[in-house]
């Protein structure tokens, strides 16, 4: 896509939708189109397509090494793409240097400037845009109040606690009123209690400033509680995009299910199909589940089920297992057991079972999911 050249003296790479002084593009749609990034023969990003609506909170979720941080760095411009396009409000920005994109970014290590006070850290982006004086002061104060750090403005980052440093990093990213705020596992260096507090604050700040937020995390709880939509990634590809409810209830892929807490995975073979349900034979038992991928009798399949939906039953059908361990978690007992073929099963019971006891496990009707298995 070509744009009119705004300034004939600019280098060719700067012709793209560079941010002008004081301009804000809040309310622009961000499109990622076939993003690729390879390091030698290794493809860290293998074709990422994603359209993000203005004001949306998107979580990129996946295990470490899945490419989510690479994707974020590519959007920020810190890593050049090896293929694909990034468009903001219809204008291409993927060849722009990071300093010309006008995005706000919060780093995992905070990356505060250790030699500047909190106020100067937050004001850095404004100084770079040439905004000074009363306007800058007002915006810095607003940003500091937003993260409740008004009283710490003249301290150096080294004098602040981890949570406070994280707030400074957020204030610094949002004070420039960026169209997009990028967050790279911002809570991973905080302790569990602080992490819960900051989670709520981050969502609150997002709702107040109205920017689009892209939030990278490997913690599904964080993604589920924060995001409007979650993008689950694995090996440089998008596995599924959906609302938290979508992903939680209806994962389309066995790996996504795995990530969403379907801890038990039983490989088996499809016996019969009726409507959206199928019966399979797995671990020596006949089990029924909802098909998430098309299956026909004779296919290899995987049954995935959450621990709370796999219960120990007194009699009837079910997988014959030996209990390995039990623990009490408030309302119920949860346990781990081994099937006759060595497979691991995670289940719920209403009373403690002794280690080594034999039990039968049966999925709650309608709660087990069926995916395609590897053809054996």
């Amino acid at each position, binding site marked *: 896509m070509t744009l009119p050249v705004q300034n004939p003296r600019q280098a060719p790479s700067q012709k793209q939708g560079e941010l002008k002084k004081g301009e804000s593009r809040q309310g622009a749609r961000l499109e990622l189109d076939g993003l690729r990034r390879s390091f030698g023969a290794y493809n860290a990003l293998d074709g990422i397509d994603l359209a993000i609506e203005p004001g949306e909170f998107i979580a990129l979720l996946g295990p470490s090494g899945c490419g989510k941080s690479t994707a974020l760095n590519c959007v920020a411009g810190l890593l050049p793409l090896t293929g694909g396009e990034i468009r903001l409000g219809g204008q291409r920005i993927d060849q722009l240097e990071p300093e010309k994109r*006008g995005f706000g*970014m919060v*780093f995992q290590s905070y*990356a505060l*400037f*250790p030699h500047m006070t909190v106020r100067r850290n937050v004001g*850095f982006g404004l100084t770079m*845009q040439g905004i000074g004086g009363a306007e800058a002061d007002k915006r810095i104060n607003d940003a500091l109040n937003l993260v409740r750090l008004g009283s710490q403005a003249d301290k150096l980052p080294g004098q602040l606690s981890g949570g406070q440093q994280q707030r400074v990093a957020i204030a610094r990213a949002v004070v420039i009123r960026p169209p997009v705020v990028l967050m790279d596992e911002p809570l991973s260096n905080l302790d569990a209690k602080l992490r819960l507090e900051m989670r709520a604050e981050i969502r609150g700040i997002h709702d107040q400033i109205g920017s689009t937020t892209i939030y990278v995390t490997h913690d599904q709880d964080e993604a589920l509680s924060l995001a409007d939509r979650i993008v689950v990634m694995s090996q440089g590809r998008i596995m599924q995009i959906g609302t938290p409810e979508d992903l939680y209830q209806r994962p389309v892929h066995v790996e996504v299910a795995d990530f969403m807490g379907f801890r038990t995975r039983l490989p088996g073979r499809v016996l019969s199909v009726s409507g959206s349900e199928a019966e399979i034979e797995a671990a020596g038992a006949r089990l029924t589940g909802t098909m998430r991928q098309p299956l026909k009798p004779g296919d290899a399949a995987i049954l995935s089920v959450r621990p709370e939906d796999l219960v120990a039953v007194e009699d009837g059908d079910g997988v014959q297992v030996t209990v390995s361990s039990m623990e009490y978690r408030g309302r119920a007992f949860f346990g781990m057991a081994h099937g006759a073929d060595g497979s691991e099963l995670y289940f719920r019971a209403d009373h403690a079972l002794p280690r080594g006891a034999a039990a039968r496990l049966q999925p709650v009707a309608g709660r087990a999911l069926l995916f395609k298995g590897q053809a054996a």
Partner: protein
Amino acid sequence: MNRPSLRLRLAARGFDATTLLVLPGLAVMLALFVYPFAYGIVDSLMPREGAWYANYTRFFTDRFQFATIGATLWLALPVTIVNMALALPIAFRVRLMSRQRLLTTILVLPITLGTVFVADGLLTFLGPQGWFNRALILVGLLDAPVKLTNNYWGVFASLLITGFPFAFLLTLSYVTGIDPAIEQAAATLGAGPRQRFFRVFLPLLVPGLAVTFCLAFVQAFAVFPSAVLLGAPAGPTRVISIAAYQAAFEQYDHSMGSAIAIIMGLVELVVVVAVLGLRTLFYRGPAGGTKG
């Protein structure tokens, strides 16, 4: 009186059996460093003849001696500045390199081989028939060989060959000590390469650069063997080390030798204190980032 025993009181202040392990090292330093140093100061104040300060008046009134301070500074300061000026931009490039090891290994060679070896090599390399002159004539920069040994430039070259790698490796260790995310943060906030360097990197590096400058200067200021072998030890490269050595071991006037050695230490101290004093005007905390 229920006062704790002396042993417990000492332990509470940090003195226990483990602390005593510091004693052997301390004893060696007292015997081999502090005592001789004090001895040297006293010795320098007991000249062969004249008042107690006679050595110092002799040094500062004799132009042949006094000029060695200027000669040493005239070598050490420009070389150190050139070394730093080269080290900083090159270290900035090299920090982006994935395989720094080969380069750093090559550069550590002249440091470990030392000035005597480098002086010997430069005598051949920079000589009128050496590769350096030949190469410059070959590319047409020179018509006839220039004299680069047994004068100022020979010593300058030797201090460059051993001093640049030293300054570079130290600077590199400081530059790579800065969290790369800090630069990325500055970039996402709209700072271009120039602004990133001057507003973020440089202020963070100043303390390290000041220390590097001092250590590199100390090395250049102490120049001795190459000033004799590659320079003109009776003329423009008669540095203060030579004066001190000659007084103590050629004229056997250890009192005068100690006096010159102490003057040498003081002059160096003045420069180091001046540089470190400038440093305090800048940020002094950790450069590695704030946490994590």
